C-alpha cells in the first residue's frame, strides 16, 4: 500500500486504524482515533519529509508522546511507504519490530520511543533547541495526550521551552478529556483548566484552543506555526476519544480494549484470516525461542500472583481499617472496581503523576493514614525512585506499594512497560524495603504476618509487592 501524501484523507486513516485494531485485536483504538485529523492534516499538508529517505536530515520531527495511541500514526507511515507492509501486518507478534507503543526506529521515521507518559515533550524541547542552536530550520511537533499532561515532567519541560523561545516547536494536546480510567475533571485537570494553565506558558497569538476534528481549524493553526511562527506554539485540540466508532466514543472502558471483543462488527473478515495464519505461524516460532532461552522468566510469570489476587488479598484489611487509603496511578479496571465502589471516600485516582503519588503517600502516612500505592512497575520503581528512597524508605514509613506488570507481563506494550526483573535489583538497594515477589498463597501469608506485626510495637516496614 503506497499513497501520495496529498491523497491521504482522514476517512482513510480512520478506517484503516479501525481495521488495524480489529486485525490484530489491538486495544488502544480509542486513543488512536482521537488524533486522526491532527495527524492527517499534519502529514498531508505541513510536515516536511522525504518519502525516498526517512533519515533525510532536513526533515521535520514528529515526537508522538502519547505512544500508546499510535495506530493512526502507523497507518499513515505505512501508507506513505515508511513502514513496510510485512512489518505493518506482523504487528503484535513477538518478533515484530513494530511495538504496541511507539519505539524509536529511524528507518520508519519513528523519531523517539514513547509510551511511558510524559517523556515526549522533554525530548521534543531538546530536539528543537538543538536545531535552533545549530541554525537549522527543522520544525519539531510534539503530540501529547491530555491525560499525560498530569506528569510533572511536562511542566518542567514547558518552562524551558518558553525560556529558549522555541519558535520551531509546536505542542499539540490531543484533548479527548479521558484518561485510561476516568474523566479528567475527576482527577483534577479538566480541559478548561488545562487550557487556562497552558495559556500562561506561551505568548499571545501562539495559543490555539480548537476542535481537533475540524480540518480547517487545524489547518489554520498549523499554517500559522509553519509559516509565521512568533514563538513557542501550543494547540489544544479538543477531540473525542474513539471518534468514529459509536460504541467506544468517549467511553473510558475502551481505553485499552478492542471493540471486537464486545460484538463490534467489522467488515473485512478476509484480512483477519490472512493475518491469523501469519500470527499463529510466528507465535510457534517465538514459543520455541522462549522455551530455549527464557525458561526461568516464563515459569516465574506463571507463578507470580496476579494484580487481582494481590488486591483481593489486601481487600479484607482495607475494608476493616478506615485508616487505609488507596492511591492509584490511573489504572486498575476490573481489578479495583470493588475498592472504588465501596470506599470511594478513601480511594483516589491520583492520575498520571507517580512522583507526587509516592510523595503524597509518604505525607499521608506521616499524617496517620496507611496508604497503599497501585501503579505499573516501571513508572513506580524508576520514575518515582527518588521519592521511594527518600520520602518513604528514609522515613521508614509502612507504605505498601503494589507494582503491576512484573517480569515483562506487558511485553505486548513495548519496552516502556516492561523491565525484566530489574525492579527487584533497584528495590534491593533500599535496606528498609521488603520485597514480596511470590505467588498468591505467598502474598496472603506475607500479608497476614505483616498486619500481625503491626500490633506489636515496632513500626511496619515499607512493602513492595510485585504482581503480574
Amino acid at each position, binding site marked *: 500500500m503506497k499513497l501520495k501524501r496529498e491523497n491521504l484523507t482522514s476517512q482513510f486513516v480512520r478506517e484503516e486504524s479501525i481495521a488495524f485494531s480489529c486485525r490484530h485485536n489491538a486495544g488502544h483504538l480509542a486513543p488512536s482515533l482521537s488524533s486522526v485529523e491532527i495527524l492527517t492534516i499534519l502529514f498531508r499538508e505541513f510536515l516536511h519529509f522525504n518519502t525516498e529517505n526517512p533519515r533525510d536530515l532536513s526533515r521535520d520531527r514528529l515526537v508522538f508522546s502519547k505512544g500508546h495511541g499510535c495506530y493512526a500514526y502507523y497507518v499513515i507511515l505505512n501508507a506513505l511507504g515508511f513502514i513496510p507492509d510485512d512489518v505493518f501486518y506482523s504487528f503484535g507478534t513477538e518478533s515484530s519490530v513494530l511495538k504496541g507503543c511507539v519505539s524509536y526506529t529511524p528507518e520508519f521515521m519513528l523519531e523517539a520511543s514513547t509510551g511511558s507518559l*510524559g517523556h515526549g515533550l522533554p525530548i521534543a524541547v531538546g530536539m528543537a533547541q538543538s536545531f535552533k542552536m545549530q541554525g537549522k530550520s527543522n520544525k519539531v511537533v510534539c503530540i501529547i495526550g491530555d491525560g499525560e499532561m*498530569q*506528569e*510533572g*515532567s*511536562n*511542566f*518542567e519541560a*514547558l*518552562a*524551558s521551552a*518558553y*525560556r529558549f523561545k522555541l519558535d520551531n516547536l509546536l505542542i499539540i494536546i490531543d484533548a479527548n478529556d479521558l484518561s485510561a480510567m476516568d474523566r479528567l475533571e475527576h*482527577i*483534577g*485537570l479538566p480541559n478548561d*483548566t488545562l487550557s*487556562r*494553565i497552558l*495559556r*500562561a*506558558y506561551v505568548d499571545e497569538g501562539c495559543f490555539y484552543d480548537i476542535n481537533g476534528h475540524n480540518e480547517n481549524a487545524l489547518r489554520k493553526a498549523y499554517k500559522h506555526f509553519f509559516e509565521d511562527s512568533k514563538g513557542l506554539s501550543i494547540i489544544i485540540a479538543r477531540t473525542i476519544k474513539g471518534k468514529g466508532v459509536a460504541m467506544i466514543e468517549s467511553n473510558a472502558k475502551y481505553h485499552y480494549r478492542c471493540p471486537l471483543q464486545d460484538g463490534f462488527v467489522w467488515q473485512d473478515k478476509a484480512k483477519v484470516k490472512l493475518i491469523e495464519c501469519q500470527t499463529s505461524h510466528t507465535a510457534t516460532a517465538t514459543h520455541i525461542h522462549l522455551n530455549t532461552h527464557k525458561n526461568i522468566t516464563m515459569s516465574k510469570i506463571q507463578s507470580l500472583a496476579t494484580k487481582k489476587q494481590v488486591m483481593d488479598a489486601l481487600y479484607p484489611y482495607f475494608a476493616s481499617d478506615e485508616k487505609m*487509603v488507596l492511591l492509584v496511578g490511573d489504572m486498575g479496571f476490573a481489578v479495583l472496581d470493588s475498592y472504588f465502589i465501596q470506599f470511594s471516600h478513601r480511594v483516589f485516582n*491520583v*492520575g498520571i*503523576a507517580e*512522583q*507526587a*503519588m*509516592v*510523595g*503524597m*503517600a*509518604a*505525607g*499521608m*502516612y*506521616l*499524617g*496517620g*493514614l496507611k*496508604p497503599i500505592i497501585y501503579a505499573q512497575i516501571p513508572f513506580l520503581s524508576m520514575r518515582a525512585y*527518588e*521519592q521511594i528512597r*527518600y*520520602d518513604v524508605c*528514609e*522515613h521508614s514509613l509502612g507504605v505498601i506499594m503494589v507494582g503491576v506488570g512484573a517480569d515483562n507481563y506487558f511485553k505486548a506494550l513495548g519496552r516502556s512497560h516492561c523491565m525484566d526483573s530489574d525492579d527487584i535489583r533497584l528495590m534491593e538497594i533500599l535496606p528498609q524495603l521488603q520485597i514480596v515477589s511470590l505467588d498468591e498463597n505467598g502474598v496472603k501469608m506475607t500479608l497476614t504476618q505483616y498486619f500481625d506485626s503491626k500490633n506489636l510495637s515496632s513500626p511496619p516496614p515499607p512493602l513492595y509487592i510485585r504482581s503480574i
Partner: protein
Amino acid sequence: MFGHITMQKNPQHFVLQISILMLVCLRRCRMYNAALDIRKEILSIANRAKSPHIGSALSCADILTLIYGEILYLPYASESEFKNRDIFLLSKAHSAMALYASLHHYGYMSKEQIEGYYCNGGTLPAHTDKTSSPYIEMSAGSLGHGLPIAVGMAMSIIGQKNAQGHQRKVVVLMGDGEVQEGSVWEAAMFAPKQNLAHLIVLIDRNDLQGYGRASELLSYEPLEQKWSAFGWECKRVDGHNIELMKESIMTHCLSDTNKPLALICDTIKGKGVGFMEDKLEWHYYLVSDEVYHNALKELR
C-alpha cells in the same frame, strides 16, 4: 487609624481604641524584634558552623517568624495536645538554619541542640532530618518533595481539630527555584479538588536559586496566574512585611473557601544584611568572624 480615632466623641471609646492601637503596635514591635533576633541567631549559627546557605536562610526569616509566632498552634512535644498540633514543613530544607533559629527563639529547641548544628557527631544536619527533633516534621533537602507530602498530610488530617477548636493546618514553605520541579505541579494539580482549605503553601520568591536568577533560567512567571489556573487561591505579598502576610493568611483561614492557599512572598535573598542582599554568592559563601561582625552591625 488615627483619623478614625479623632472622630470618636465618646472618651471611653477613645481609650479603648488607643489601647487596641498600642496593643497592635506592641505586637508589631514584638514580631519585628523576634525577626531581628532570629536573624542574629542565624548569623551566629552560620558563623559557628561555617556552613553555607546564609542568603536563603535570611530571606525566609520573616516568614518563619510569622509562622511560629502567630500562625501555628504548636504545643511542646511533652504536652498531650502535641498530637493535635499544626504542621509546618520546610521544603526548601537548605534554609534549615532559619528553621532551627526560629525553633530556638520560640523555645522549642535548646541552646545545646542549636550548637550541635553542622558538625561531626552533632545533633542537627544542614538539611532537616526527621529524627533530630519532634518539631522537624520531615527529612528534606531534595527539592520538590515537600508539597506532595504536605498534600498527603493535609488529606489525612481533614476534620481533625486542635485544642482551640480549629481545623489542624498544614503549612509548607517552598523556594522559588524548587517550583520548577515537576512533582510540585503534579501535587498542585491534585490538591484543589480535595477540600484542603487548611493547606497553606508559602513560596519564598527571592528570585535567586543555586546558580542564577529563577526568572531568567526558566519561564516560571507569572506564578500567580499559574497557581490560580491550577485552581488554587493565590495571593502575592511582600515577604518581609509580617503584618501583610499575616493578614492574607488569616483572611484565608476565616473565609469559607475550600481551596488551598498559595501565598507568593516576594523576598530578598540575604535580607537584613546589606552586602548579602540579592547576591547569588551568599548561597555558598561562609560567614567568617569578620563577616559576622560586619553583618551584626548592619542588622542594628
